């Protein structure tokens, strides 16, 4: 049985990749473009594919056949159900963290 816990917390970049794949199957290059749109710095392809390969090895995503009309030999990926579980766990973790943070802030304001 694969453990969700051992992958948490997720690197922000990996979380973003998984989020991008939640919107639908896509190839790596398209994900980079997506991430570039939403982030301030440009993503370097080398580190991106390293991340992609590692989450594939962790079975959070899997390669699927490219849809017809894809140019070149671009690899298309789909998020696995395990991947969804990890994303859900990470989201829950962040939610909890945010909650703790908000409470702490309110407390500290009450003290000051």
């Amino acid at each position, binding site marked *: 049985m694969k453990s969700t816990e051992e992958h948490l917390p*997720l690197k922000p970049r990996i979380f973003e990749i998984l989020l991008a794949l939640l919107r639908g199957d896509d190839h790596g290059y398209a994900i980079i473009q997506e991430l570039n749109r939403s982030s301030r710095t440009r993503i370097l*392809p*080398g580190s991106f*594919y390293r991340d992609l*390969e590692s989450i594939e090895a962790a079975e959070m995503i899997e390669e699927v056949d490219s849809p017809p009309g894809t140019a070149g030999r671009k*690899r298309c990926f789909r998020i696995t159900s395990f991947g969804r579980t990890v994303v859900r766990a990470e989201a829950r973790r962040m939610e909890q963290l945010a909650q703790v943070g908000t409470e702490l802030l309110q407390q500290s304001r009450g003290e000051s």
Partner: protein
Amino acid sequence: MKLLRWLYCCALRAYPASFRRRFADDLVAAFDDGMSNPEWAAHEESRWLFALRSILDALNHGLRRRLRRAPATTSPSPILSLPVLRRANPLDTTMRDILWGLRALQQRPSMALAVILTLTIGIGATTAMFSLMDAVLFRELPYPASDRLVAVQQRDTRTEQVAAPISPANYLDLREASETFEDVAGTLFRPFGPTVRIDDEPAFSAQVFTVTYNLFEVLRTEPALGRGFSSAEADPEGPKTAILSHDFWMRTFGGAPTTLGRTLSVGGIQREIIGVMPEGFYVEVPVDMWIPMDYDARVHFALAAEIRHIGMLNLIGRLADRRTPAEASAEMTGLLASLVREYPEDNEGIAAVVRTAKERQVSAHTETLWYMGAAVAGMLVIAALNMAVLLVAAAASRQSEISTRLALGSSRRRLVQQGLAESLILSLAGAVGGGFLAVALIRSLLGALPANLPRQSEIVVDARAWGFGLGVAVVAGVVFGLMPLWLHMRTEPIEALRSRSGKNTGSARLRRALIVAEVALAFVLLIGSGVLLRSLDKALRVDPGFTIAGVMTTGTAVPAATAESAEGRIAHFTNLRDELLAIPGVVEVGYSSRTPLRGNSVETEITIEGRPATPNSPMMVEFRRASAEFFPALQIPLVNGRLFDPQDRPDTMPVAIINASAERQHFAGDAVGRQFSWNNSGTLFTVVGVVGDIRHFGLDSPATPEMYISTTQFPNDSSAIFVRTSGDASALATPIRQRVQQANPADPVPTMQTMDGLVADSLTPRRFPAILVSGFGLFALLLSAMGLYGVLVYLVEERSHEIGVRMALGAGPSTMARSVVADGLRTTAVGLVIGVPIALLATRSLGALLFDVSPTDPLTYIAIAALLLGVAATASLVAGRRATRVDPAAVLTRS
């Protein structure tokens, strides 16, 4: 951009093949997309930095992916992001530092670009200079065990002669008696350019070096094809042979092995080709072929073993086992001294000059090259100082960030590593750029080098030069990269955090000190270039004693059929002169055996009738033949007496013309009518005229005593021609060449040169360092101006509050601008004050390279100081304008 894409694809090879198969297309597509980002149209440098980062990123991840070998499951999951959980391996840290440095630079692309450009020029020039010095000065001569080769020459102790060839008879005796040498060989003066003809093909001129038969054995270099010379060829009756250079063999015979055994005519003598030397082989200078000396007095360039009073051979010996150069030197000195005692008449006043073969070859250039090397090093230091100035400025603006990190417990070591990574990235980028620049510089330099600079063909930017450039870059990166860090490390982080006003007096002081150093160094460089340029200018203004403008010079040889008789030779020259005079625009045509400024010397001793001999100060004159029209052709004035006359024939009284120097030095100012003989030949010459001095050995060499004998009285079989025209001499080159060639169709196509060209050539050794050092100096000036400007702008920004307040209180903008300019001039003045004594010290050794200018020439010092102050004032004015743009209202509102 294609290059960057190619580099990126190369970098991708760092990944294992399995990874590449899956993702290479995607990676390249992502890279292309990044490169074509429209936002970067205005920031080309950002695009480059993106490419650089991507390449390093691919190398980093690719190599790490390879090291990891198996997929992620076997190692701790890379998905874990908390750094504490990951073991920090050195490769990791280094890569992270590099990427961090790149990111830091990407945020300040113009600063990064300025530093890289500066360093590229600095390192490029230094690397090019290193390649040149390496080939000429540092490398051993290209023969096996070349450190065992020793050059033997002689000097005349009664004159200032430095080193001259040794006579054939003395050579044979020295070789026979020597015990310190395995063997001694010799080369004749320098190569000559006889007519060469192969079968019935058109004749051409080739460079031929006459050498002793054992030369190649002494150099331990065998022909690549065929055999070397043997002792049989030293016999005048022995076989006539030649050995070709590889280059000439390829050019003329297409590298055919059947070349061996063929014959060619060299200067009219049929010679069998017996060998081809290896590619790139040369002795002293590259030539087309070598012929053996046969000690035969009958042939023009051969030697008589009996000649003892005329030096002809430069000797090169190979030391015997366990013998040292010092022993060889002592032995040669002793042997030559005993030859002087044995043959006092022929060997009067000579002494041995013994040094290593390499020393002999480069001694004339050592000083110039080291001087240029020092100049280029000075320029590099200025470039590195400029990098330090910019890095200090950048560091100052990051002061609070660094203080925060220190306060939070970041280790100083890590900070130093990151800072070093940043400056090393810059200097390595400079090194790569500099390497390519050096290649380009060397390529463009090769045509402009003085012709007498040895080993020019070996000047290349090779691995050694690249290594040198890289080494320089690393040293510059470390030394000057640590400077800003040292500034931070001195500050207590808490202190720095407390005063976060951004003011950093330490940094401002450091930068000012760096600029002062730059100005001082630039001053030294500019003084060097200033005195070299002044000396070149003075040399150009020298009156050579003859007309340069509108004169064309070439050469002619009398056809073999008519060369036998004196009448035939005279007729050839007379007819050719008439032919040339018929060309419209030709004013006068004269002949002489020597071309001024070519530097050929035939010095000979004369004895004046009725004057006792003075053995300790021989009367030496340069000997030449000249036609009567030679003097009007070059407009050399007649000072006294008459010029040659058509009546001066082989059967009339031998006459001579001397120059004013000879009259003054040897005839006590009264020469006409006096008689003299030369080289104890017995023939008495009567001086019939005195002509003006000419600077035969170069505009920057003093005139020497000369004697001319008449070409109609002693006609030679070849001569230089001087054609004075009424306009542009080069416009008449074609008709002149045609007439000269028609006069002797068997002769190779004559080479033409204008006197202007000869003057330019003769000054190359002077012009070359002057132009190079001036280039370095100008670059140094530009850098210092840029550095000064940058510092002043920064100071204006720092003082903007003060300026605003003062302007609000009524100070005019011009007052503020003036204070900035004064600041700039003050900094420059301090630099000058420091620079003057350094310049005085540094240029002291320049004296030998200068002509008619003192290295401490006050005019140059004043002019250069004024130039630097002027440039500094301009840079300060531009910076000062910023001060006037400070808006007092805005400043006061902010505060």
